[in-house]
């Protein structure tokens, strides 16, 4: 069964085709890695999936519905995006309280998720004084507020120390083992190789691979296969394109 279905998804910004007729599915109970070079269209794809960017063509559904038709989005999908932020003058707990209030979630969830990401001690501190790693944890706490069935995470490992990375890996594995679903975008291939079951590789807005990690790495280590797939047919300057 597919938790996420992307079908023929396309986004043009003026003349630039950021995402080009992209189709893939994310199976329930898996951790799926969305990989690709900078500017490949990963973030734009995730933003279309989450209803933040309107596709030029195609559809993206979560639990069978487009994001904007979900009756209780926070309980269905928890998302953490790279560019999402917090007001620097607001405390960690208050930042989450604002989200919980808008989603109609009880305040007790705020303390629960802060404990879950190991930020309980920093709950009353202003986010402006947080390290990048703490911000990432807070972002993850925000994604977890609604106790969602699907997690969509954009580069969640950014700024985490080795201990944090190990913790995140275990967290995502346990999440999938509970029968829930994780879609995670990343550049950190070595890390991805230890975390994900399945991979979707995007280059220049197009799908270049969609399989289990095991199938893909039969051909060599993930880095070699990734570089071979993403450089094939490359024209012009590397890494060009929007975020």
């Amino acid at each position, binding site marked *: 069964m597919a938790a996420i279905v992307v079908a023929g998804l396309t986004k043009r910004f003026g003349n630039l085709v950021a995402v080009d007729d992209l189709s893939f599915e994310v199976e329930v109970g898996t951790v799926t890695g969305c990989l690709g070079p900078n500017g490949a269209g990963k973030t734009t794809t995730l933003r279309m999936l989450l209803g933040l960017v309107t596709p030029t063509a195609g559809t993206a559904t979560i639990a069978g519905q487009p994001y904007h038709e979900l009756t209780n989005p926070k309980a269905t999908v928890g998302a953490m995006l790279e560019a999402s932020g917090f007001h620097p003058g607001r405390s960690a707990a208050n930042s989450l309280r604002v989200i919980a*209030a808008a989603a*109609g979630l009880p305040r007790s969830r705020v303390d629960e998720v802060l404990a879950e990401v190991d930020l309980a001690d920093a709950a009353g501190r202003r986010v402006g004084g947080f390290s990048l790693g703490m911000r990432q944890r807070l972002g993850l706490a925000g994604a977890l507020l609604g106790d969602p069935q699907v997690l969509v995470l954009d580069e969640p490992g950014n700024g985490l120390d080795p201990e944090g990375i190990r913790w995140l890996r275990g967290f995502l594995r346990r999440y999938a083992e509970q029968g829930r679903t994780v879609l995670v975008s990343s550049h950190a291939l070595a890390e991805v190789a230890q975390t994900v079951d399945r991979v979707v590789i995007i280059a220049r807005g197009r799908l270049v691979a969609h399989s289990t990690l095991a199938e893909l790495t039969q051909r060599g280590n993930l880095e070699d296969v990734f570089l071979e797939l993403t450089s094939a047919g490359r024209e012009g300057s590397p890494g060009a394109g929007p975020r």
Partner: protein
Amino acid sequence: MKELITAEVLKLRTTRLVYGLLAATLALAVAGTLGTVAISGEMEQTFSLDTAEGVRNVFSNAGAGSIFVLVLGILGMTSEFRHNTVTETFLVTPTRGQVVTAKLVTFAVVGLIFALLAAVATVAVALPALASKGIDVAVGDYAGVLAGVVAITVAYGLLGVAVGSLIRNSTAAVIVALAWTFVVEGLLVGLVPEIGRWLPGGAAAAVSGQSVPGSELLAPAVAVLVLIAYVVAFSAAGTRFVIRRDIT
């Protein structure tokens, strides 16, 4: 909608800006009231305090909060983009029009609270200041002026949210709004009143019952309708813009 308004109020209460601007509003209302009492009838282009216009102008200082509420409304929308909290806001509520509506309601109420507090401060200072000049007034006779400034402060909260929806950069939106209010409208209302009186600031001045000798403002009832038309038009345009744009 109740949840969204609760969230908007929480956003305001958990940062310091609103308290600072409330303090500024009260300070300006008090200073403006004392200043108006001091110069009325003494300087050109002012009415003497023994005229109804003169006393109305004193009480119209209760509208001191309108510019601060305008700024608060703008930042209520633009700070979401500035700090990128807009992503989470629209993830929680993908029907973005509801978010804009919740902000409009919230900042209308903020305008109401600011204006009522400023009115209390203005009256509290105005009565003894007028009495010290030997002028005894019944506040009830000027209830229309106070109601008018409350109405325009509410309208400025709504206009702030609308402007912030149309210009999402905080600095640019605040500069445009202040330059428009103080420079463009200031000049047009004074120098070209046949145009200026139809602008939001000209209409607001008429609603608040201000008078400048020799200047023609709209009749208050007409001015109220003009102000409502601006609020509706800008709110609709701002909402439409927020709904359609990509959040990247």
